[in-house]
């Protein structure tokens, strides 16, 4: 029998009401099974038996339902995905509330870990199946229609993709990369959505700056009016407020890094918004201020301060790595792969980006420590015989100057192991 894509397939079945044969599309709300997926709640933070029991029951319930879903034939799976709102809400709740390893201590009882693992696997496989338009030679969806289905039914959106990267990117990077590449390939509107999301991310930077009393727009240049509320800086804000900022900071940068690590094709879209410059400038304003605020509170809760320091150091590394992923994807990789005539464009982009961040001395030092700028410049020199030496020398000199008066560490700061206790 000719094999039609699921979106064109019609089913012939007996109408339960009339007993007559009828033909309906394979993707039809009536083909959805009655199933009510429950919302995910994270494991309890305290080992209260009743709470643990409640969590286990709920998690097992979801895992069983998702396993049932994964065992459904192709057409039934898609009917459930498209027409069962409870399923989408359940998946969303997992993405939002599943514990991140960097976010909380995962010291749960063994039975909680076991069920959490089952659930983690089932959720990932569900998203994997949802991002696959061709399961087999017989079971597939027309690629263009697949793209529309994903987008119009909000099966994936940018925040969900970010969450998927941070939750599953570590051990399942290559599969996740294929999933996300397929989603963006089949539906180019996701690139437009990403383009609209970047200003929101930049707004997050502004919010943090505002919370820290470091607003960098024109307003900060004007003197503060007497009746205005006194700007609170990280140094004098309550410890809890500082903690909130650092946790938010850490979550934001880990998530962004996880996304770009899995899907570097997004870099172009980020750089359309001058992201490299914005990142460096944000780094310069916030990192020294937050570091100083943590160091100066030595008399307060030491374990909390140590934890905040660790998160801030982690965030620093992620910011520097994000910058490197962008530089690598936008300039270095194309230079390595390009034919001679295109190279100049990428070299120019590299020079422009670095020239724009030269005044961010602290950022420049930290970046240079992890990814020596001379190595990249050397690559440019090898790639182009017509490279403007004056400009590269200017950049190298600015990097050197950023190190003046600061002792270079032998090993990278952010990558080093903690000294023995």
């Amino acid at each position: 029998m000719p094999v039609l894509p699921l979106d064109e397939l019609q089913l012939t079945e007996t109408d339960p009401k009339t007993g007559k044969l009828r033909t309906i599309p394979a993707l039809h709300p009536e083909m959805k099974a009655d199933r009510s997926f429950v919302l995910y709640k994270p494991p309890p933070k305290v080992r209260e038996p009743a709470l643990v029991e409640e969590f286990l029951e709920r998690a097992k319930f979801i895992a069983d339902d998702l396993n049932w879903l994964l065992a459904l034939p192709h057409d039934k799976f898609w009917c459930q995905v498209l027409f069962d709102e409870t399923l989408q809400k359940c998946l969303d709740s997992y993405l939002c509330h599943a514990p991140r390893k960097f976010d909380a201590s995962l010291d749960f009882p063994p039975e909680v870990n076991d069920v959490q693992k089952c659930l983690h696997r089932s959720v990932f496989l569900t998203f994997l199946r949802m991002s696959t338009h061709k399961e087999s030679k017989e079971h597939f969806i027309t690629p263009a229609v697949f793209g529309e289905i994903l987008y119009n039914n909000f099966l994936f959106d940018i925040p969900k993709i970010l969450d998927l990267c941070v939750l599953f990117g570590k051990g399942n990077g290559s599969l996740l990369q294929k999933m996300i590449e397929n989603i963006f390939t089949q539906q180019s509107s996701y690139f437009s959505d990403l383009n609209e999301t970047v200003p929101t991310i930049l707004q997050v930077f502004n919010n943090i700056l505002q919370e820290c009393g470091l607003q960098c727009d024109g307003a900060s240049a004007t003197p503060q009016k007497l009746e205005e509320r006194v700007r609170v800086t990280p140094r004098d804000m309550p410890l809890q407020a500082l903690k909130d900022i650092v946790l938010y900071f850490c979550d934001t940068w880990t998530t962004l890094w996880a996304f770009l690590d899995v899907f570097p094709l997004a870099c172009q879209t980020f750089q359309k918004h001058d992201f490299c410059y914005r990142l460096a400038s944000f780094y310069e304003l916030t990192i020294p201020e937050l570091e100083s605020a943590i160091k100066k509170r030595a008399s307060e809760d030491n374990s909390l301060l140590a934890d905040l320091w660790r998160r801030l150091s982690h965030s620093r590394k992620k910011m520097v790595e994000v910058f490197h992923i962008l530089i690598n994807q936008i300039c270095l990789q194309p230079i390595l792969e390009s034919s001679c005539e295109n190279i100049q464009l990428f070299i120019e982009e590299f020079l422009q980006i670095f020239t724009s961040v030269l005044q961010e001395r602290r950022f420049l030092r930290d970046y240079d420590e992890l990814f020596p700028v001379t190595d990249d410049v050397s690559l440019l020199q090898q790639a182009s015989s017509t490279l403007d030496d004056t400009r590269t020398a200017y950049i190298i000199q600015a990097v050197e100057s950023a190190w003046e008066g600061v002792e270079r560490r032998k090993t990278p700061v952010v990558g080093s192991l903690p000294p023995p206790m």
Partner: protein
Amino acid sequence: MSSELTWKKIVKFVEDSLNKKEQQSVNEDLRTILQAAKQIVGTENGQEAIESGAVFLFKIFHTKECVGHDETKAIKQVFGPFPSSSATAACNATCRIASFFTEEQLTTLIQKTERQNDDKRVFFGKNIVVSFDMHDLDHSEDLPINGEAKTQKTISLDY
């Protein structure tokens, strides 16, 4: 969507259930259904497709006495335009075969294979190894106890 009921299963069901004389008569009708499927499906899709088409015809006609509007529509949806004489021949042949069996026997034949098909369902991702590993905080230096002497820029008073 069609179940995994195959043409071979229908033939075996007939062979196992009927005596030789009845079988001869039914074999003729089975050939008619297969021939009708050939006309409707077309020969370019091969024997497997023809047999799948014959199963489809058997399933939609096993409870019918004539080709109605619904059946016509169902065949058209799957195969496109088709010769009505072939559908009529398939319907009549199926009807004659069905007359040798009770409704329960036929229902059992179809539902049993559907149930077997359910049992053989493959769990999506059964063989995929999913890692539970997650991004964690990177190692970093400890919080300096006494300020930031080493990293602070020295201030020169030599104007």
